């Protein structure tokens, strides 16, 4: 495979796209063909199954570049799998089909997520060469340095502010435009930032925050507004701690659209009868909204809040592009990358583990909340 991929890499990009997709689809087509004929009985099909079971692992190991006897062991294991499949209680070929469907995904997940996650967890307790275990030193380093504490605090600030404000803006906007004329256009305008990459959004906002010295004409919109009101231009991204808030604005700008779309669907799902009943009781629009609509969409609100919380915990691109973590704006995901680039693999892994530990309670809270609601009903 190395050779194949190496050869492909020498071709023009567009040819690579076609070739890789075609080769991949051909392999999948072949796989589906073998799955299709697997359960058929008769000596011919049994022989085909045996050949596939033995040859596929053998060839796979060889093209992955392993030594010959490792490949032979794989082939023998394939043969054993054939026997297991042959004697399967659900009939020969059953296991073969199952493995055919699941193996690509399971193998990729094992090598690409499970193995690396374990690897990172171990690295977090090792020194920067990944040779000696150093216990909790990396974590102690994070939580005793003023800089490391700052990084964690910044991340927590992101998680507290972004979901709250995005949800409030999204909810308000969804309620304002509900059933109004041109609702679709209104939606598209606020939703549009979601299609823009974080990098693109960062440049857009960096331009808004741009500052020129006093006396020169401003080209950043925000400073121009300040100047119009008689103030002096501010270097928004340099003064800690407020610069973090100006970075946070970018993510709010992006996530409000997400909150708005989900909550808009939820608001429309609130039964009209409930609202009408409340109206007959003489409530005003605000009371109806707070006492009927909001409780009615409670679980959608939780979903939106948790989803945005997780996104803000992992925020990386915005910080990387706008400040690269300078002027005390760094967050965990950015620091994880910075430490890794600085060959501090242990500390980098420790930051990744801290991030993982911070994501977990949000998911657990969400799962429990939903379980609770299921019990009530």
């Amino acid at each position: 495979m190395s050779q194949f991929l190496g050869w492909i890499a020498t071709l023009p990009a567009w040819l690579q796209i076609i070739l890789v997709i075609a080769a991949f689809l051909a392999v999948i087509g072949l796989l589906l063909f073998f799955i299709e004929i697997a359960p058929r009985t008769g000596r011919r099909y049994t022989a085909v199954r045996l050949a596939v079971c033995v040859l596929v692992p053998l060839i796979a190991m060889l093209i992955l570049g392993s030594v010959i006897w490792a490949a032979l062991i794989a082939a023998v294991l394939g043969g054993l799998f054939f026997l297991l499949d042959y004697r399967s209680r659900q009939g020969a070929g059953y296991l073969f089909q199952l493995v055919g469907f699941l193996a690509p995904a399971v193998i990729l997940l094992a090598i690409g997520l499970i193995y690396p996650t374990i690897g990172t967890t171990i690295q977090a307790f090792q020194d920067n060469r990944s040779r000696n275990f150093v216990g909790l030193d990396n974590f102690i380093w994070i939580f005793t340095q003023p800089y490391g504490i700052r990084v964690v605090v910044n991340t927590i600030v992101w998680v507290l502010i972004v979901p709250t404000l995005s949800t409030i803006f999204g909810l308000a906007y969804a309620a304002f435009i509900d059933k109004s004329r041109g609702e679709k256009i209104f939606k598209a305008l606020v939703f549009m930032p979601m299609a823009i990459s974080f990098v693109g959004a960062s440049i857009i906002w960096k331009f808004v925050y741009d500052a020129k010295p006093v006396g020169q004409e401003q080209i950043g919109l925000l400073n121009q507004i300040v100047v119009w009101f008689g103030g002096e231009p501010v270097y928004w991204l340099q003064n800690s701690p407020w610069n973090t808030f100006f970075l946070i604005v970018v993510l709010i700008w992006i996530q409000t659209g997400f909150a708005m779309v989900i909550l808009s669907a939820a608001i429309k799902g609130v039964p009209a009868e409930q609202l009408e009943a409340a109206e007959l009781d003489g409530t005003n629009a605000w009371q109806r909204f707070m006492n009927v609509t909001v409780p009615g969409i409670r679980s959608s609100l939780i979903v939106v809040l948790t989803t945005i919380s997780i996104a803000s915990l992992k925020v990386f691109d915005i910080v990387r592009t706008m400040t690269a973590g300078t002027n005390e704006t760094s967050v965990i995901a950015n620091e994880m990358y910075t430490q890794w680039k600085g060959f501090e693999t242990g500390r980098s892994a420790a930051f990744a583990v801290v991030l993982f530990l911070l994501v977990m309670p949000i998911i657990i809270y969400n799962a429990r909340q939903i379980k609770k609601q299921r019990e009530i009903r």
Partner: protein
Amino acid sequence: MSAVTPIDLPIDRSTEKQLARGEAKIEGSTAARRTKRRLTSRSATIAALIIAILWTTPTLGLLISSLRPAKEVATTGWWTIFSNWGFTFDNYVQVLAAGNTQLTMSEAFLNSIAITLPATVIPLVIASLAAYAFAWIDFKGKDWVFIGVFALQIVPLQMALVPLLSLFSRGITIGGVQLFSGLNQGTSYSQVWIAHTIFALPLAIFLLHNFVSEIPRELIEAARVDGAGHGQIFFRIILPLTMPAIAAFGIFQFLWVWNDLLVALVFADGTVAPITKLLAEVTGKYGQEWHLLTAGAFIAIVIPLVVFFALQRYFVRGLLAGSTKG
């Protein structure tokens, strides 16, 4: 990674129904909606208008600036476009040829396409295979394996990046035996394709499973009676029927990969870097050359914007995909 995330968390039945009802109303005919009494007041409309303007202005500023002459961009604000009139495509011509020592913006744009297309198709196919097995083949411990796959979603990308990179570059050696020799080319797309494929799988399997399991059992049993095996059922029934779901997730995957920076920083170095990476790099280098930065940024966001406006319907549907099935 981009901002778009479909609801990927478990949702209870009633919320599911509520969102489905709302979605049906969104997609319902506009004529039916007009007859309804308007509930919004004038002040609400004005507030909505203000938010909409606030949200659109920054992007508008970027677009206008990217079309103004360099001298004007550097000295006057884009909102003075009418008093300092000027219009040019020079910035685009210039920025497409600019870049770092290894590649230009136009090459990076091509790289983005070359990375994104395979990294969208491959995970979708693999995930739909797995989703079918989880939905329609019975085996021991199926629920546990499925929960395991679902749980992998909460693992942040950051946990997996570094060991995966060393796996790609050094391979696996167990007890001196090389099981996998590594991909050992720094300048091919293969690393970043595989990385994106893997990182997309948990969510893709979970969402597609929701759709695949909703297909009526009778349909599949009828096919089985007619002599179709799992291969044919998958190819002839499952694939065509779940195409809308696959398309919706495909849009997301496309945008994620196109907008991603983190995976590209780690896995796509040198001449295969996508446009997001190059753009993030030149933001520091070009610091104050806003005519180049704005044009570059617009080139990077134009494809996602086109995809978004053309497929907005599917986009919204896909966003609700985790909650409203079928």
